């Protein structure tokens, strides 16, 4: 099977999205730096976006796609990611101002 001649399908995109999603999740789980966690979130959102776009693609699934909905939801996700990034960054900076650190392990006020 030659990857240069074979056409790609939705599955391929889904695999890429899965890789990015898992990378983001692992990133969130392992990074102690708050900004690292934020980056993990961006990765997770992107992985999901890849899926949306793939499912709405005319090229990959002509006639059986979800049409413009996929692209539009992807757009919304992008916008929400931007908003989320702004707020999360503000929270991070605030946390940094208060605790003089960006180590999320120090932010255990939620401990039960």
């Amino acid at each position, binding site marked *: 099977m030659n990857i*240069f*001649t*074979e*056409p*790609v*399908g*939705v*599955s*391929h*995109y*889904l695999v*890429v*999205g*899965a*890789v*990015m*999603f*898992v*990378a983001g*999740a*692992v990133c969130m*789980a*392992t990074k*102690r*730096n*708050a*900004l*690292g966690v*934020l*980056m993990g979130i*961006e*990765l997770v959102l*992107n992985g999901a*976006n890849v899926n949306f*776009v793939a499912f709405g*693609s*005319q*090229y*990959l*699934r002509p006639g*059986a796609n979800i*049409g*413009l909905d996929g*692209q*539009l939801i*992807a*757009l*919304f996700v*992008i*916008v929400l990611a*931007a908003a*989320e990034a702004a*707020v999360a*960054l*503000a*929270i991070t*900076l*605030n946390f*940094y*101002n208060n605790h003089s650190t960006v180590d999320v392990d120090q932010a255990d006020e939620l401990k039960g």
Partner: protein
Amino acid sequence: MEPINWHSVFFMLFSLVACGFSLAVVLTSNIVRMAFYLVIALAATSGLFFLAGADFVGAMQIMIYVGGTLVLLIFGVMLTAKGPFINMKTAAGEWILATIVGGSLFVVLLSAATNVPSWQALDERPAEAQVTATRLGMALMGARVDALEEADPVTRRGLSGYLLPFEIVSVHLLVVLIGAAYLARPKKRARGSADSL
């Protein structure tokens, strides 16, 4: 010898870049490098969007994500990038745990992605590419020009535009920006307020 499917080739290129730099983001512990790798991974993702025919979304990906969100993140990195915070090591145990958990999630996702027959690659291709910006813009304005040819009136009735979600998202964005500005503003001295009391 079959002709080289350039779509597949570029897909492989962008997907490898995206996956590779995503993993790099995970693996490196230097926050500055993480930001840089992320920029590359996201840019590669926008390439994948173009390949999937979502030209407008791909453009937005570059403009908003790479140009806006990540710049914001990098601002954050630069503001907090003091000696001890640049390299924050994670304990090995956590690594192992995260790998196991993430691996199992990946396996689950992979099996789901590859085991559905209708998601497999198709041979035929649509002859021409269509520019999606107009249709998206009209949909956001409330008109689904792409669905005008829809034969089934029941289906067509469900294909209304996205004006209301668009408005909601716009207001949401505004609120978020104001909230972010408020959260990040410099703190006043507590003594001043105590005097005023």
